[in-house]
């Protein structure tokens, strides 16, 4: 793909002619410059001279006719004829139109680059127009300067009359501002109840709210025109009335304030009108260059502009705006703009993920004054591609029809998705997007980057599209060309993920399918450092301001939760199977999930996600392998790892560093050091307070600084009250009880149980059979009453690791369940890695699917295997082809099996108890 302007080759024979044209053009420009160099030249003389000079610069001087409008005067070539083709250029300074220069031929001429004109001629006309604009501007400035000097001379030694002079000056230098200030003064006079002002209002035909019948009643009838009234010198009259009722100091003070406010008017207009982003960006830059402190503005004006800018750049979600408007300053958008990629006609936003990170970074920077521990928290270099570049990408490649993908059947979406990915990856990038990405890539150099989705829906409160859209790591090594191609591929893949089956299913579930979803992109430098051939942070992870996974009753929800891994944080966010992030609560940094040596050895992360700089790939390697021969290179190793020596886990011995195999990344050093816990806790508290709801963040530490990578509201289930646990039930009515990790709430009236028998599942002989169980669950998900069934099965549902660990499903296969129960057989004293913080669990929380881990081997719990194995299964009625699975997968119609009773689950977090029992239905069926 090339963005270079490709000019057609000029045949050698034409070269002399082309050069001759160029010489003419230069001669013409020289002549114009001679005319305009004299600032005292009369406008009429200048106009005539221009008219005479321009034809010499054109191909056909004899036929050239010129029309120039400048400072209210128009000059035309005598006998000017109306011509079909003309080239014209506005004469303007700072968006102010001062006139126009137009050139045409008196008769039709043969076609050249643009109509009969050469491209160079068009450029010549524009250059002359620009030069004329400068000339006119210079003259105006001179006039204003002379006026000002005169006014100052008048003011010297004069106490009164200042107002008159100021207003005169204003009227002469900026008529529009003079007019607006007069209006404001008139409004002010009316407000303080000056009858003359109100009469003036009537005379000037300006309705005053409360007096105009139509406005007051807000009827649909248009106001009657009140033509025929005498034209009024509104400004003069207003200030005459003002001077009768107000002191001169008062009037001058107000005028000064209104002038200051008016300076911002352009920004307000730019923000509120739906101007394309480049125009809005110009306005913000202009404001920035004025270097007016935000605090100089009246608060209502500031708030208005901020809200408009938030809506344009960040989010139009009302709740989001309400939350952000107190924290974002106008000047912050100037910083944001310098790292945004958008097109000339763009109206897009930066998307949810980008917006969350942008806001969080501002919050932390401000909070650092009060909390010094936050001063060292950074945000990596980040670029944002606006959401509508995605649409532009599709249009550029004639792919707009795939936007309708969302209305297709899920099965069709699923089957067509690979094709869409293929299409996107083989598409061309619109030049502006390509150029923007190239500039961003230039700024990153060859440091690894991550390309992340940041869609409009993503990370909104209550709809975390976590993990449904893609995030891709790029090693970003090689030539610029190679790196750019890799970046394009990544962006295309993320664009395609908008049409993936999982997000579509999620959107259908949440009534979001008709939303015009757009995909913004976040390009972020990967936080890390080089260790041998690998690039990785010392550690990274995800943190929650509310802890929904309390392994000790001493941990309160507000103590938060951190999941830590060495290397890239992907392993803390994802469920990776047989590897475990280290968890701790920053509010209770002394408490450990793993206490005994055995627990520590078994339940620590052993693999590390890294970027391999030599193979240019994202890899997962054993921790020991990263350290092999490089123990001294790994940043912050004493905080990350402990050593295992003589069966003991001890702090790292820096004098006698052990072999990599004896290093255990249990983060004991980091947790014991406390400052990390303090920083994280402050960060979570500050962000939660500002966001107005629990938040979760992603972070990484490169050995020098802690970096914030992402921030969004933590989607948590509605907090139902604790349910009373019945104590007097006959044992045969109890299906299971739980005494660990219980949250509050109740799941009433479940009519079906889908039970995957843990023993039988473990005995399934082939991977195909294991996968078939997952598929059958997906089919049952569509057949069974939504939110009317409970899923009970072994291990970790939906684990991305080995499928023997749990039933292989994704969210769309379980989306209609009311409750998901993971059955874990206890091994020693350990706490199994629950799905908390992983993409899957967030889905459950969002969809209000209750989650409960079950430990049938615990003392004092009941697990009614007789009922689960003995009650009749209706699997074959629902899925006749699933006979081979009938021993493993059972579907119990609870009402049929229990004399009309249903299954009810009551949960009580205060008691840490849950019970599922057969009960009489609460909901009566019609």
């Amino acid at each position: 793909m090339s963005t270079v302007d490709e000019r057609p080759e000029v045949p050698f024979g034409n070269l002399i002619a082309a050069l001759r044209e160029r010489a003419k053009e230069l001669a013409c420009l020289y002549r114009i410059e001679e005319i305009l160099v004299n600032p005292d030249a009369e406008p009429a003389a200048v106009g005539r001279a221009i008219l005479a000079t321009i034809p010499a610069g054109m191909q056909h001087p004899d036929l050239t006719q010129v029309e120039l409008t400048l400072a209210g005067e128009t000059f035309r070539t005598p006998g000017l004829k109306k011509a079909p083709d003309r080239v014209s250029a506005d004469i303007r300074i700072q968006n102010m139109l001062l006139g126009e220069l137009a050139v045409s031929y008196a008769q039709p001429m043969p076609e050249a680059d643009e109509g009969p004109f050469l491209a160079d001629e068009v450029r010549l006309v524009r250059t002359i127009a620009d030069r004329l604009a400068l000339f006119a501007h210079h003259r105006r400035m001179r006039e204003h300067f002379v006026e000002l000097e005169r006014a100052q001379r008048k003011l010297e030694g004069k106490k009164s009359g200042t107002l008159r002079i100021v207003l005169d000056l204003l009227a002469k230098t900026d008529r529009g501002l003079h007019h607006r200030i007069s209006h404001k003064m008139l409004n002010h006079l009316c407000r303080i109840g000056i009858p003359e002002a109100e009469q003036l209002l009537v005379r000037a035909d300006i309705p005053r709210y409360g007096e105009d019948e139509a406005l007051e009643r807000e009827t649909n009838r248009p106001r009657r025109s009140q033509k025929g009234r005498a034209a009024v010198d509104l400004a003069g009259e207003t200030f005459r009335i003002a001077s009768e009722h107000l002191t001169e100091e008062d009037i001058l003070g107000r005028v000064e304030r209104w002038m200051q406010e008016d300076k911002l008017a352009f920004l307000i207009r730019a923000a509120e009108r739906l101007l394309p982003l480049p125009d809005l960006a110009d306005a913000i830059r202009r404001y920035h260059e004025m270097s007016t402190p935000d605090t100089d503005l009246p608060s209502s004006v500031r708030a208005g502009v901020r809200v408009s800018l938030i809506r344009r750049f960040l989010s139009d979600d009302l709740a989001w705006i309400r939350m952000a408007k107190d924290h974002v300053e106008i000047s912050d958008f100037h910083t944001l703009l310098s790292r945004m990629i958008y097109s000339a006609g763009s109206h897009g936003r930066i998307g949810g993920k980008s917006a969350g990170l942008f806001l969080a970074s501002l919050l932390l920077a401000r909070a650092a004054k009060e909390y010094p521990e936050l001063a060292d928290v950074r945000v990596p270099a980040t670029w944002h591609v606006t959401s509508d570049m995605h649409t532009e990408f599709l249009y550029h490649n004639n792919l707009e029809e795939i936007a309708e993908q969302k209305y297709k059947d899920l099965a069709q979406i699923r089957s067509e998705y690979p094709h869409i990915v293929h299409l996107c990856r083989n598409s061309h990038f619109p030049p502006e997007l390509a150029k923007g990405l190239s500039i961003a890539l230039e700024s990153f150099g060859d440091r690894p980057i991550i390309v992340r989705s940041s869609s409009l829906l993503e990370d909104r409160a209550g709809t975390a599209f976590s993990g449904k859209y893609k995030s891709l790591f790029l090693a970003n090594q090689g030539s610029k060309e190679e790196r750019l191609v890799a970046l394009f591929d990544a962006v295309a893949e993320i664009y395609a993920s908008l049409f993936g089956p999982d997000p579509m299913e999620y959107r259908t579930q949440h009534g979001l399918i008709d939303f015009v979803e757009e995909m913004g992109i976040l390009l972020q430098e990967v936080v890390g450092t080089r260790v041998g051939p690998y690039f990785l942070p010392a550690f990274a992870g995800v943190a929650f301001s509310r802890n929904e996974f309390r392994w000790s009753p001493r941990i309160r929800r507000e103590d938060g939760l951190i999941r830590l891994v060495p290397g890239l944080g992907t392993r803390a966010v994802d469920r990776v199977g047989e590897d475990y992030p280290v968890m701790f609560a920053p509010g209770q940094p002394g408490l450990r999930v793993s206490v005994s040596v055995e627990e520590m050895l078994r339940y620590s992360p052993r693999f590390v996600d890294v970027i391999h700089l030599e193979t240019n790939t994202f890899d997962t390697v054993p921790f020991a392998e990263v350290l092999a021969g490089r123990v001294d290179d790994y940043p912050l190793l004493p905080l990350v790892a402990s050593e295992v020596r003589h069966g003991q886990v001890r702090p790292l011995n820096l004098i006698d560093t052990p072999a990599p195999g004896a290093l255990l990344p249990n983060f004991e050093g980091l947790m014991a050091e406390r400052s990390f816990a303090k920083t994280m806790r402050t960060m979570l508290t500050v962000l939660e307070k500002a966001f107005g709801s629990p938040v979760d963040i992603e972070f990484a530490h490169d050995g020098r600084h802690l970096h914030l990578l992402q921030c969004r509201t933590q989607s948590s289930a509605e907090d139902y009250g604790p349910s009373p646990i019945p104590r007097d039930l006959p044992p045969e009515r109890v299906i299971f009880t739980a005494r660990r990790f219980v949250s509050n709430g109740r799941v009433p009236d479940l009519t079906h149980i889908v039970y995957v028998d843990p023993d039988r599942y473990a005995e399934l002989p082939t991977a195909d059979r294991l996968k078939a169980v997952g598929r059958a669950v997906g089919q049952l998900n569509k057949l069974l009453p939504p939110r009317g069934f409970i899923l009970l099965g072994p291990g970790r549902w939906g684990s991305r690791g080995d499928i023997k660990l749990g039933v292989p499903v994704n969210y769309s296969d379980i989306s209609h369940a009311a409750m998901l129960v993971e059955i874990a057989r206890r091994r020693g004293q350990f706490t199994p890695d629950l799905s908390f913080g992983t993409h899957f669990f967030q889905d459950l929380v969002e969809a209000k699917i209750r989650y409960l881990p079950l430990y049938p081997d615990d003392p004092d719990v009941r697990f009614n295997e007789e009922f689960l194995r003995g009650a009749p299964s209706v699997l074959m009625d629902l899925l006749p082809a699933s006979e081979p699975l009938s021993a493993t997968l059972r579907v119990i119609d609870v009402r049929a099996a229990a004399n009309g009773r249903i299954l009810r689950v009551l949960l009580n977090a205060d008691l840490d108890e849950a019970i599922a029992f057969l009960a009489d239905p609460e909901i009566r069926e019609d």
Partner: protein
Amino acid sequence: MSAGAFNPFQMAQSQFDRIADVLKLDAGTRELLRWPLREYHFLIPVRMDDGSHKVFRGFRCQHNDARGPCKGGIRFHPHETIDTVRALAMWMTWKCSTVDIPLGGGKGGVICDPHHLSAFEQQGICRGWVRQIARNVGPVQDVPAPDVMTNPQHMLWMLDEWEAIHGEKGPGFITGKPVGMGGSLGRTEATGYGVGYVVREALKILGIAPDKALAAIQGFGNVSQYAVKILNSFGTKVVCVSCWNQKDQTSYTFAKKDGIDVDALLSITDHFGSIDTEKAKAMGVQVLPGDKWIDQEVDILIPAALENQVTGENVQRISKRVKLIAEGANGPTTPEADSVLHERGVFCIPDVLANAGGVTCSYFEQVQCNTNYFWPKDEVLSKLDAKMTSAFKAVHDLSKKKNLYMRDACYQISVDRVARACRDRGWV
């Protein structure tokens, strides 16, 4: 504990009663040995990290010290009961007596769950425990050790508090300390090697040449790994080990007819202790279902994993070739299976003897600390060999003399030694 529910102390008492009947112990001796000699219940107030105070309940039970200072672990367990502590203390008396080391039996604990406590708070509990009982424990009174949820760090805190109170150094107060801080070398190997030493002695009695013998082991933990190593050093081939596979959530047996190579298997073992099945196959090791270890055509079976593994259901699968079972784990054979094996004439080395290498090494740690002179590993292991061998011989002599099943001989010899010590001291 409600009436009718399982009570470990009642079970330990009734087990003792049966042996006392056989030994025809007098009423006074019975009454003395049925109960702990001394029992301490105390409260441990601890200042928590948040400034509040929490009071924990602590125990120390000294079952019998007629043969020497009490010896036994300290457990941190949220569901600790005095009956569990009493039963375990009594068990320690018999165990020390079986291997004939000059120690009695004790056990202690605190009702707590370290998962809910910071390291600082745990230190508070350790020091508080010692403060409450400092005058009743010590190198020549009662010697604690790590147990459930306690580790060498806890032992060091306790030692430090004890020394502070007494104003003197006394590393022999507690065992299980880190190497270099009063810990003994050879601790890692001790239990597995101990199993190997008694197996070697049993083979001599059975007339089986060690280099002709084949063994199958259940488990691939510390005990099993070192048992394989020491058996290999005698020329005995171990044809299989079994282990849990974390990834597949099931266990497998890894078998090789000409003997497994423990170091090769360890090189493909992950931090869960799971052997990589694919790599094992590539090494020419057969990967069989987890329970296949019991079906092997071998001379020796060593269950060294969990309780209740040889049961009435699978005991019949044991090959006729099997002549010897050495219980590396605690209680791996159910009573039902045990009687079948007894009838079949399989030679059994019961857990109390077979896995006593660990407690013997603790004793050595104490001895080394008391003399403030630490032995090289070889010396520790050779002394261990000597101790285990002589203990085995004593039990076997009794079993031969009285025509007793080895398990019964163990119990009888241990109770008899303690009862005699009490009588010799004129207690009863």
